[in-house]
């Protein structure tokens, strides 16, 4: 059996800053994960559908525009709606501390803000993936 952790790295919303997403994608690759990279400006519907088609274990989103309170929970709902009950959904980007509790309540398993060592994200995924 050759189980490999598959992660969808996605950028929802309209900001075009994908350096962070690329750094994370690269770190996850080096940790031995298969990273499906979908590029910029994805709608929540596109992210959920791609997650389903790719049967990923993790959806990792990055937002730097401030649209996370709206877009992150929407992705959670849509991914769950596809029948992906076990999929771990995490987020990152420029996200104020005060927003994090609401995101977690909405089903975002963890939020990684700027300055997080990539190793911490890898560890979190390994410890929490189903």
């Amino acid at each position, binding site marked *: *059996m*050759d*189980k*490999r952790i598959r992660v969808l790295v996605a950028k929802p919303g309209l900001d075009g800053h994908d350096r962070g997403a690329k750094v994370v*994608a*690269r770190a*996850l*690759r*080096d*940790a*031995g*994960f*298969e*990273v*499906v*990279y*979908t*590029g910029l400006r*994805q709608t929540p*519907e*596109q992210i959920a*559908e*791609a997650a*389903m*088609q*790719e*049967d990923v274990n993790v959806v990792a989103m990055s937002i730097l525009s401030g649209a996370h309170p709206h877009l992150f929970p929407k992705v959670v709902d849509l991914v769950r709606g*596809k*029948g*992906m009950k076990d999929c771990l959904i995490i987020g990152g980007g420029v996200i104020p501390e005060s927003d994090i509790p609401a995101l977690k309540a909405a089903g975002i398993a963890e939020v990684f803000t700027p300055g997080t060592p990539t190793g911490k994200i890898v560890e979190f995924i390994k410890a929490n993936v189903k």
Partner: protein
Amino acid sequence: MEDIAQELLNGSRLALSRAITAIENEYDNATAIMKKLYPHTGHAYVLGITGPPGAGKSTLTDKLAKEYRKQGKTVGIVAIDPTSPFSGGAILGDRIRMNSLTLDEGVFIRSMGTRGSLGGLSHKTADAVKAMDAFGMDVIFVETVGVGQSEVDIVKAADTTMVVLIPGMGDDIQAIKAGILEIGDIFAINKADHDGADKLVTELNMMLDLDGVMKEWRPPIMKAVANQNIGVTELVETFKKHHDHIVSSGQLTQRRTERTKNEMLDLLSSNIGSYITRNIVDTGKIDKMVEDIKAHKTDPYTVVNEILQNMLK
């Protein structure tokens, strides 16, 4: 999910996705799934898209898929990218060029890492294609990793193989080397708005002219600019012509017979391999055998022969 194969056959996209995961990860239920799907396969037209990295395979596949959608055909895409031989990880980035297909209900895209396979595909590509075939996709694209010169597994997996090239990658000696240039049923010169496209067409024509025998099908050389959607309808028409040709000439049947044979032999060797791993390596029997061989009590030929005799009992 109770019965993945049945749900796939009933039209569940999630089941299709889970089936491919089971196949790819060699889960215990993978063989049962494939057995149940097998009778429903053989209807799809499988198109192989290969060529060097950055030639525009994904962009072209995206545009070709849209053209087939206009004709009302459903489309499956298996897109392969390289797995790192060091970490085992991969960046699967083919979807970036295909985002506008994601929400089309008549399209299903799956990215796969090569996971150690060297021929431009992954070991499980063929079975993933079968799952999409059984799901009812009319046309299935298999996009290989960016290939160099010798990764030609795609011909074994596809009904029609298109080699995508771009201008400016070498002189005419490159064009007469063995390898991927021998496998094209169709050549697409992408980025044909760049300098050197006509020269490349000439060089490829020269290469084809050097074929000693007149073939029934001379691979057409088509120019395209994928990101501007130029040359795409013409490519789809050419696929149709090639498809008609291989049907009427009996080549399609021949190719599929050959493929069935290859797949059976692959499955057989892989099962023999796992038998050996299970019974000889994992049990530690191998250590005793190696010791005896080293002490010259016996020789490797005798030992291997005994193992085979035992297996066939």
